[in-house]
């Protein structure tokens, strides 16, 4: 009697402690989940905050006289300089003039040139133009330069700040939507650099990748799922595919370098080679997804087709494949999304060069969006940090769009048998 009481007393004495342990344990779980989620949020917010500024660019309004003499010499930047001298007539010293010219981007002359090329009758006239400011001015306008710091520690001098204040008072300087960021190729000058070249390179690379890996992956999946006998040979293929999926991406880059560039002699930096390497990388993903899609088609479809006299191949191509195709496409989109974010293998095959021109075809030297991000992240200029983050935002938007497309496709064609 007394024994039993002691037992339950013992249990009750421990209960409070055990419940505390229970609550603590659950708290650990919640804390871990929250921490993981907040990492995601912190990272996205940190990138967004840094990058959102790059979608606007400081432009300076100037009246530029299209001097026929200078136009003959192709000195368009000289016209911009002349107009700056006109706006600030009291700047006389050589050193100060140089500073003054630095307010506007080195590439502002191209804007003048393009304008005149469109309309040759402008020669000899005054035209009003919004010209891109230099990156330092851009940073001032975006508030990244601390005016209270001593002059020697700033990248922008007091004199320049005074000019900017005057321009601002005249309404001749403002932040405008940065179209150049979406329409230009790479540049050494942050204010002239854009992502179009990289986006086009990524697009070409992905097209090559898709055209190679999707048919190959689907055909391999059809064979392995529908025709392959269960033997040692097919076992090897399967183990192989699973292991390939786990090979570090940089090793695929080494393969591309040694085989495609070294052995077959394909051109360096071309999106063709990039697409080939990425195709080999995404192949396992597509094979695995396609096999799952084929497996989801019920046997009754195959049996019905075989029963009315279709051959095995006809059964698969005419009846099973159409039903499995949406699932395969979903897998392909997810594979492409992963390929879009890949950087390391592209570095190995030389898609990391500084390329100004937008690539026109798959044999042209190109870079890709993630590689562009890597290159810009290395640049010391403040303005490039901003553009790096902006390029990341663009990349993430592409990825989100692709993944959402995959989800919609899956939802739309999902069938319950």
């Amino acid at each position, binding site marked *: 009697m007394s024994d039993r009481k002691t037992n339950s007393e013992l249990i009750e004495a421990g209960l409070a402690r055990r419940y505390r*342990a*229970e609550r*603590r*344990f*659950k708290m*650990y*779980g*919640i*804390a*871990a*989940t929250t*921490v*993981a989620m907040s*990492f*995601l949020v912190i*990272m996205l917010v*940190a*990138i967004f905050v*840094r990058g959102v500024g790059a979608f606007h660019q400081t432009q300076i309004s100037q009246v530029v006289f299209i001097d026929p003499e200078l136009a003959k010499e192709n000195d368009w930047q000289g016209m911009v300089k002349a107009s700056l001298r006109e706006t600030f007539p009291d700047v006389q010293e050589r050193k100060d003039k140089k500073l003054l010219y630095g307010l506007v981007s080195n590439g502002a002359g191209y804007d003048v040139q393009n304008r005149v090329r469109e309309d040759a009758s402008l020669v000899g006239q005054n035209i009003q133009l919004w010209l891109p400011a230099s990156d330092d001015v851009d940073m001032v306008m975006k508030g990244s330069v601390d005016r209270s710091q001593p002059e020697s520690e700033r990248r922008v001098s007091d004199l320049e700040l005074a000019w900017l204040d005057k321009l601002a008072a005249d309404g001749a300087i403002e932040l405008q939507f940065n179209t150049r960021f979406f329409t230009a190729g790479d540049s050494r000058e942050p204010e002239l650099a854009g992502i179009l070249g990289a986006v086009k390179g990524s697009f070409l690379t992905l097209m090559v990748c898709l055209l190679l890996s999707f*048919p*190959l*992956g689907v*055909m*391999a999946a*059809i*064979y392995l799922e529908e*025709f392959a006998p269960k033997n040692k040979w097919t076992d090897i*293929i399967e183990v*192989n595919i699973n*292991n*390939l999926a*786990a*090979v*570090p991406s*940089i*090793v695929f880059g*080494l*393969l591309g*370098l*040694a*085989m495609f560039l070294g052995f077959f002699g394909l051109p360096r930096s071309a999106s063709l080679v990039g697409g080939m390497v990425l195709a080999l990388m995404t*192949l396992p993903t597509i*094979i695995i997804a396609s096999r799952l899609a084929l497996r989801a088609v019920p046997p009754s479809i195959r049996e019905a087709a075989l029963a009315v006299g279709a*051959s*095995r191949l006809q059964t698969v191509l005419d009846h099973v494949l159409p039903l499995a195709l949406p699932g395969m496409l979903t897998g392909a989109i997810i594979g492409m999304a*992963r390929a*879009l*974010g*890949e*950087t*390391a293998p592209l*570095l*190995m095959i030389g898609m990391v060069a500084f390329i100004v021109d937008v690539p026109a075809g798959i044999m042209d030297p190109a870079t890709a969006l*993630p590689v562009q*991000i*890597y290159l810009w*992240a290395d640049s010391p200029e403040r303005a490039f940090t901003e553009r*790096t983050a902006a390029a990341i935002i663009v990349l993430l938007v592409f*990825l989100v769009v692709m*993944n959402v497309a995959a989800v919609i496709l899956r939802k739309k064609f999902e069938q319950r048998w």
Partner: protein
Amino acid sequence: MYVTPHRRAKIILEKAIIGILVASSMVAIFTTVGIVASVLFESLRFFAEVPLTDFVFGLEWSPQTALRSDQVGSSGSFGAVPLFVGTLLISAIALIVAVPIGLFAAIYLAEYAHVQVRNWVKPLLEMLAGIPTVVYGFFAALVVAPWLRGTGAGLGVDISSESALAAGLVMGIMIIPFISSLSDDVITAVPQAMREGSLGLGATKSETIRKVLLPAALPGIMGSILLAASRAIGETMIVVMAAGMSANLTLNPLETVTAVTVQIVALLTGDQEFDSAKTLAAFALGLALFVTTLVLNIIAHHIVRKYREQYE
């Protein structure tokens, strides 16, 4: 009258098509053979110039070849130990971050969370694995590293701006979903009867998890950790952007270390002729990387499969 000739053509055509299907399924094998061949072949040429023992046991890594070929020490030194140690240090930091977070998140999602919470949180966690590594690299190099350095300076600790800590922390974030997803799967796969047996004896939920579910799921969890480790070792962009170039042999996470993948990128993205020992060294490093990750993966898959068989 119509069937026979048609049939014959069809049979030939079908044979041909199936032949194409077989060929495309062989591409996976060709890829593996291609990887092994290209990496191994170039590595063998490297080891013809630099002895294998120097590479595996050498403590000094300075692949700079001299400008003139007759200069002393023009071959550089290719001791890869500092790189291996650097990679292991960064991966270890990543695992120290990712294993507790991933494991507890998996336990919470599998056993405690409401279905709706789980349906929302799980895909969000998996988003961490879908973000391109170059984005993590940017985050590590331009956000985390300066922040660590600033915090360190505030505390009077000198933290390098290319510390192993920054790279490791961010890599840890990246591999959280590798651990949480697979661990979640194996914990959910533990038979319901084992849960009910333990709860029926009066154990609390956490006691059931710690004393029954985790031991039962341990092989699967180990497998997930090995897969995450292999991912961390082979990861390139985070370390290229956030870790350093100088090959310091140190275990101090606050100092600059370099990693195998960083050196591969460094050796192959500069301008140099294809046949120098420098370029070939990259392939030797690639071989080491390939073999290590392959072994880790095979062990991991083996453990996970063994464990699945137990309950099926």
